[in-house]
């Protein structure tokens, strides 16, 4: 008997076996009574032994069974352990996904934290030893060159929006998803991302568009023929010609991945439609100068197999229309030609600028933009890839719907062996320590960021399934928004209120005097009183400074926040000794929405921020000024930042690659390489001098004793672990092995959070749907369909479901009705089609589509049910 078994399970097994034994007795009637006669429990540290004796009374015989079973008691550490669940995490480099799956199978690796596709993914999915988590976030498209050819003898058919729209019918997305991707993709028709809140909000509208643009080669041919003829082309034989010459489309096909097959498939479809196709199959870098930088009107290409990525669950879809259908976001030659219909242009801009007064108004804008984007069709979306993250069965971890494990902020807070506390886990990554680590211009590689997230904390985390902010280090928050702005809040830790005007107070810090190293107040910066779109107030816990420590043991202080605030301004200021030209655009971007900040209280810490940066969700509109979030690339305490600044000033190294290259010096790296020696020198000097950077400002928050203690702590940390990267997360970076391609993260026992804090995010609550109902419906009569929705093998609670919408399509594929299913009980809903709906159906096969939108996960659940109508 396994140690994992519970006594109750054993009991049930016993009942079953005894019942079986009783049945073999050949009696006519068996009455079974099970009673636990005795039960002794002897607690042990990890397990208890349960002795169970049962007497089974039956007629005509009685069987007495005694069994001893071992059951695992809850490890006391489950409830009390702080920091990470594991003792150590060893990150190992493994570039090849096939090899990674083999290593996972062999137990040489516990998790491969990259999203994998193709044969490796299929092998992982089919493995008995592995589990996989689906990740969305890479979209395939067919991008059109919409430029009119300078050479008037040439015709570019895709200048015509109707032809671009008609191409939707020529692509069998199900074929691409099922055959070319082996099921590791889902058809994609509209611009809204799969892992986005709007995908769920507008699921019915999307479903309707999917039905409208379903694969139909005859429709494609008919529509394209009509437009081609109107453009002066003629169909000679089975080929389109213009000015007597066959029309040849130049198709740029990426050859690094499945897009090669997609390109081949679409080329064949185009040839069937009467076009000659010249396939140009090359890599990204070879094709980029043609489609991205080239002049579209030279007609050096007509189609391109593009793809776009998404790294986190999208809450607002601001870019969904603005980036792909207008010329206002990307300064590329092709985009300059984008000139959408006025209605789409206006809706797109208003969605982008959050220019609406209510959620309903926004919904209308999206409902307007969605079909128009299909008609204008600068691109036809094809598929959304569903890559998988593989890990062994005994591993439990939180993944992000769009970012997988490597992009999940909570991965290190949740990763563990399901059956034990502690242990060492090997996690594979395609690359380790790809670029230098520093907070201002360091590595932004997703795998480096995974390590940095793993050893760090956040003021506010992001829900990996919905993209909504969840509490991190802060205790609670308040958001005050200008009236009319459609912001809402779903969490009890955020207080949202509206005011006619949000005024920036005169004493708020709004700028920086780099020469005197002091903040400028709003009164100094602005000539008149400023208003902002919103004010957010982050309240840190009362015991924050006594519980949160840096990995070198230094207590957190207000100075760490202030340092992060200063560097937002100072490093991009030419008057600063640390000036870096490459940081100017970043500073300008920050200033575009920033209005002011004020530390309302230092203990407990309360920070107020005034900003024009809007967001539909109050949870995502809060500025915590948490250093790891304020710095663009990694965490930093004020004292290791001080060393980096000193090195920056004396030319030993530079934060950004730009400045390092220009000055022919190394880039600052806190974990390895030549920077370490320079940092050691700076640390000695800083310690001797009692160096406090930006002393006129930071000196108000740091004493000489504080500085001495911090430098001593950092020196000891560097002596032990050989690097200077410290953060505050549940693990710390205890081993850096760049040549071997390994990183070791060790549990940080002084972390204030229980290891179980984020356990509720272990797996996405994706709804599983089953529809039951009449196979035959009489036209004009009511028909009811039962909808069963489960999650994790149990009924989906009604409270966790946002809405269940049904759509009815007739035999021609046209949508005839839409409605909302009624909740019956947890896990059960019902869709009732009234006589008016069934009357609208004609004889034949119809389809009922159900869209389940959960509050717990951004991706809606979809299911279909076919039924026949008859008079």
């Amino acid at each position: 008997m396994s140690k994992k078994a519970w006594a109750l399970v054993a009991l049930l097994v016993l009942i079953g076996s005894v019942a079986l034994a009783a049945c073999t007795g050949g009696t006519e009637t068996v009455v079974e009574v099970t009673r636990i006669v005795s039960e002794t429990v002897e607690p042990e540290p990890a397990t208890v032994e349960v002795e169970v004796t049962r007497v089974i009374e039956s007629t005509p015989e009685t069987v007495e069974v005694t069994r001893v079973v071992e059951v695992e008691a809850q490890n006391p550490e489950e409830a009390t352990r702080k920091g990470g669940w594991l003792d150590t995490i060893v990150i190992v480099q493994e570039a090849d996904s096939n090899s990674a799956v083999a290593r996972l199978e062999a137990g040489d690796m516990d998790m491969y934290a990259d999203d994998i596709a193709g044969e490796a993914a299929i092998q992982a999915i089919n493995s008995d030893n592995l589990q996989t988590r689906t990740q969305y976030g890479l979209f395939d498209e067919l991008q059109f060159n919409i430029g009119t050819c300078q050479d008037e003898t040439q015709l570019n058919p895709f200048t015509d929006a109707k032809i671009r729209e008609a191409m939707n019918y020529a692509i069998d997305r199900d074929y691409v998803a099922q055959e070319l991707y082996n099921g590791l993709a889902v058809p994609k028709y509209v611009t809204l991302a799969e892992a986005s809140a709007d995908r769920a909000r507008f699921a019915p509208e999307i479903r309707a568009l999917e039905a409208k643009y379903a694969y139909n080669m005859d429709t494609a041919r008919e529509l394209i023929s009509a437009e081609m003829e109107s453009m002066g082309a003629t169909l000679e034989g089975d080929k389109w010609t213009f000015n007597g010459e066959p029309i040849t489309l130049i198709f740029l096909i990426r050859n690094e991945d499945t897009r090669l097959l997609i390109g081949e498939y679409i080329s064949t479809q185009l040839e069937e439609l009467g076009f000659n196709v010249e396939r140009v199959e090359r890599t990204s870098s070879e094709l980029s100068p043609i489609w991205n930088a080239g002049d579209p009107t030279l007609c050096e290409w007509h189609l391109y197999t593009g793809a776009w990525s998404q790294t986190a669950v999208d809450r607002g879809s601001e870019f969904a229309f603005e980036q792909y259908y207008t010329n206002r976001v990307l300064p590329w030659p092709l985009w300059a030609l984008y000139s959408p219909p006025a209605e789409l242009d206006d809706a797109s801009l208003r969605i982008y600028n959050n220019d609406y007064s209510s959620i309903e108004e926004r919904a209308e804008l999206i409902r307007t933009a969605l079909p128009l984007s299909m008609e204008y069709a600068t691109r036809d979306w094809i598929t959304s890839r569903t890559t998988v993250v593989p890990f062994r069965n005994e591993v439990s971890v939180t993944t992000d719907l769009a970012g997988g494990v490597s992009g999940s902020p909570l991965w290190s807070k949740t990763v563990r062996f399901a059956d034990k506390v502690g242990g060492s886990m090997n996690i594979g990554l395609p690359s380790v320590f790809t670029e230098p680590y520093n907070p201002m211009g360091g590595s932004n590689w997703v795998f480096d960021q995974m390590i940095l997230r793993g050893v760090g904390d956040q003021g506010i985390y992001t829900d990996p399934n919905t993209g909504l902010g969840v509490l991190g280090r802060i205790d609670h928050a308040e958001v005050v928004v200008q009236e009319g702005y459609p912001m809402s809040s779903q969490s009890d830790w955020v207080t949202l209120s509206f005011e006619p005007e949000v005024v920036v107070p005169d004493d708020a810090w709004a700028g920086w005097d780099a020469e005197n190293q002091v903040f400028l107040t709003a009164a100094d910066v602005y000539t008149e009183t400023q208003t902002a779109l919103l004010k957010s107030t982050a309240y840190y816990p009362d015991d924050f400074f006594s519980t949160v420590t840096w990995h070198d043991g230094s207590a957190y202080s207000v100075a760490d926040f202030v340092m992060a605030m200063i560097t937002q301004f100072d490093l991009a200021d030419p008057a600063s000794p640390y000036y870096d030209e490459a940081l100017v655009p970043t500073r300008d971007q920050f200033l575009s929405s920033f209005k002011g900040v004020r530390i309302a209280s230092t203990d407990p810490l309360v920070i107020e921020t005034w900003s024009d940066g809007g967001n539909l969700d109050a949870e995502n509109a809060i500025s915590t000024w948490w250093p790891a979030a304020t710095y663009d690339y990694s965490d930093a305490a004020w004292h290791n930042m001080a060393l980096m600044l000193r090195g920056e000033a004396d030319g030993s190294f530079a934060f950004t690659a730009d400045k390092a290259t220009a000055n022919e010096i190394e880039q600052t790296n806190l974990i390895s390489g030549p920077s370490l020696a320079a940092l050691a020198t700076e640390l000695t000097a800083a310690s001797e001098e009692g160096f406090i950077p930006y002393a006129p400002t930071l000196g108000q928050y740091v004493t000489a004793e504080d500085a001495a203690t911090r430098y001593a702590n950092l020196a000891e940390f560097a002596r032990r672990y050989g690097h200077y990267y410290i953060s505050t997360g549940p693990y710390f970076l205890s081993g850096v092995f760049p040549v071997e391609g390994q990183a070791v993260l060790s549990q940080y026992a002084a972390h204030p959070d229980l290891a179980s804090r984020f356990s509720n995010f272990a797996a996405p609550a994706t709804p599983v749907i089953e529809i039951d109902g009449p196979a035959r419906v009489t036209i004009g009569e009511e028909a009811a369909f039962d909808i069963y929705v489960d999650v994790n093998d149990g009924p989906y609670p009604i409270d966790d479901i946002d809405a269940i919408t049904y759509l009815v399509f007739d035999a021609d594929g046209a949508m005839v009705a839409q409605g909302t299913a009624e909740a019956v009980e947890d896990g059960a809903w019902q869709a009732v089609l009234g006589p008016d709906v069934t009357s609208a159906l004609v004889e034949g096969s119809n389809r009922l589509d159900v869209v389940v939108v959960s509050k717990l996960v951004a991706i809606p659940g979809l299911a279909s049910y076919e039924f026949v109508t008859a008079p």
Partner: protein
Amino acid sequence: MATDVITGDFNNAEVDVESIEATARKARAQGIKRLLRYTLLKLVALVITVAIGVYITVIVANMGGAVDKIRMATIRETVALASTADPAFRQLTSTERIALINARVELEAKRYGLDRPFIIRSFEYLRDAMTLNLGFAQQLVSDSGSRLVRNIILERLPSTLVLFGTANLILFFVALYAGLSLSRRYGSWGDKIVLALAPTSAAPPWFYGIFLILIFAALLRLLPFGGMVGAPPPDNPFDYAMSLLQHMILPVAAWLLSAIFLTIYNWRTFFLIYASEDYVEMAKAKGLPDSMIERRYILRPTLPNIITSFALLLITLWTGAIITETVFNWPVIGQLYAQAIGAFDTPVIVANVVIYAYLLALTVFLLDFIYALVDPRVRVGEGGHKA
């Protein structure tokens, strides 16, 4: 050729020592002069050859300047997408957004030197390469995060030498010994086996590597899948060395399996020609022991070829073996080349080529002198036999 100056009869010979010494000095001076002239000319020729090779590399690596267009397009793409990913970007007006992206593109272009014509940069690359001023990489960083090309290469050197040095040395000496031995046992069963197995070298090392991994790592779980050391790397140097050795077994075995039979066959065929020379037969007829015949009558005259082969083998280590390294996940120098070529990182590509070129030139240069040392038939310089 020195001239003997001898006067008087031979019974009372009076040797003009001064004259002899003068003649000898003159001969030495002429020899040194000839040697210096030869050395200088050889060096100049080699440097010119290296320069031409490096410049061709610069041109090829940059596709004659076309890489500038590719890089510019990549910068525009990367910068634009990175900018749009920042929430603050949304607050900007359309004009500000485009201005911001263009400013960032300009900065990046400047960092890559794209603000200057390629032809000028190509000669700068050549100058830096010839003076071994390897400078900074454009995109790659060393494993420890350094952008200095020197560090990028040097960090990979120890693991390269450990893996391929070991594999090649074993291969060289085993094949040499076995080849020599088989040349004396022509037609034996061992000879026939090697002959039969020689075609197995048609498969590259990584091919054997995959099978070895499947058998010994995935199936039997006796040896690691790959990597340089276990995870986490042992703290104790002895344990580290043991772990390193354990991780070397499969790649070295793959390397040997792939090449050993063909290499033995080559050496055996080579030695066979010398083993059938008349003077060898004579030695055999005299009853000299086999070991002496092999050492003095076969190995000695073939020494220049063996040394050449060994020297070239040593510098070939510099090129690594890209796929084999990848299969075994070893951080060796070949992967670096592949990454540099993929990233169009000209300084790293040029550095690799120029170092290899200099090593090759130096080897060729030194071999001339080594030949003269090991083979009395060879003279360096004019009048001597060109090696």
